[in-house]
């Protein structure tokens, strides 16, 4: 089963302003440019180092622990690694799981034979709101 990832409107309203400001600070852009459903890579120009930056800023700001690779692991759920992806490419089942997990991402962005390495291009500010909200629910650290 896919883990419960949706966050309530109240949770979103609670975390979004700080998540958006954190992303703006990490990317060096205006806060207004950050919108919930933009792709961090394709729309906001983020690079891999920016994801590291964002995660550490969120950890410090929200006092939570966000294990790297958590989004992929949560999306995989109870699928085995081989069931989720093979030779670095998501299987049909893996893609389905990912699409369900990243429900905030427009369906058109999920293309067939998606590589694991390209999954971060799907992440949005909304995705990080979910990650933070889940970490807070779990009472981490």
């Amino acid at each position, binding site marked *: 089963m896919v883990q419960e990832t949706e966050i309530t409107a109240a949770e979103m309203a609670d975390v979004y302003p700080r998540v958006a400001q954190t992303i703006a*600070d990490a990317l*060096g852009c205006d806060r207004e440019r950050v919108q919930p459903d933009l792709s961090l890579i394709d729309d906001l120009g983020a*690079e891999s*180092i*920016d994801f*590291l*930056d964002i995660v*550490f800023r969120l950890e*410090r700001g929200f006092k939570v*622990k966000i*294990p*790297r690779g958590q989004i992929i692991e949560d999306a995989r759920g109870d699928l085995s690694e081989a069931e989720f992806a093979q030779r670095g490419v998501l299987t049909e089942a893996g893609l389905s799981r990912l699409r369900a997990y990243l429900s905030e991402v427009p369906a058109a962005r999920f293309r067939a034979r998606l590589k694991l390495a390209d999954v971060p291009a799907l992440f949005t500010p909304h995705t990080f709101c979910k990650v933070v909200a889940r970490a807070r629910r779990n009472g981490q650290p």
Partner: protein
Amino acid sequence: MRSELQRPDAGVGPGPTGNVISGLELPYRFLFVDHITTLEIGRRVEGRYTVPPAVAVLSPCLVAEAIGQLAAWAAMVEHDFCLRPVAALTAAARVHAPAVAGQTLELAVDIESSATDAVAYSGTARTAAAPVVEVSGCVGAMQPMEEFDDSTQLRSQLEVLRGLPRPASGERDPGVETLTFTAAWRISEHVPGRHIRAQLWVPESAPYFADHFPRKPVFPATLLLDAQLRLALELAGTLPRRSPAQPRVREVHDLKLRRFILPGQTIETNAEVRSVTATTAAIDLSAAVGTRVSSAGVSIDLEPR
């Protein structure tokens, strides 16, 4: 003409037309930990570094390098020398006091988290009397060791560092320990009180590339930052001030290194005033080699504190 390392007595030759030459004293070896005194894996590491006698004042960037190198030792030991960190992020680096010739710096690093992709830490360098540099929110990105260093040599080096203290760096081989990094600049645009744009030529070869890193020479980000801070101070010097005292760097913040700078590359840098008060200037720094390679902010005291 490229910038190059020269002995202090070798003089400085002419650089590119219309350039500015600034000399940074640095030890011949780009190794800034003499002794590791405490090593608690995954938690804390302490060590020492003595400023070579021939280096009058050690750049605060190189003091920060010492803290980073100590953190790197801790991370490499934790990952059994299969991975090593490279500088990536620093939330804040506070400059308290200069580190001068012959002073022994007590280095301490607290590891905040450590995983296969990154190590996060904070740290200090201080003399017996006072703090010199403090860093916080530092993140080193972990890389495969074999791409950068020889793990066998590093293990041997660690044994030496954990053994009896070595003589102060400058006493080991006087005369060849200290060189001057001669940064050759061409300032392409200078609008006093607003911004400076300049080019920095990275040498094709230099002694520090042997240590940074043996298998993949990379221009140390701390040398780039030192050069950028010189530009920022020059820019701050054009701002209205009440005191004749020279501006000084108080804090570097939000430093992010996006990619490696390789020998022979030309770096385009920019220092731009973001805001000014009666006592402080905030300046944004950026560097690019075709595409952006680093960014940071710096707070400069315009008046003595």
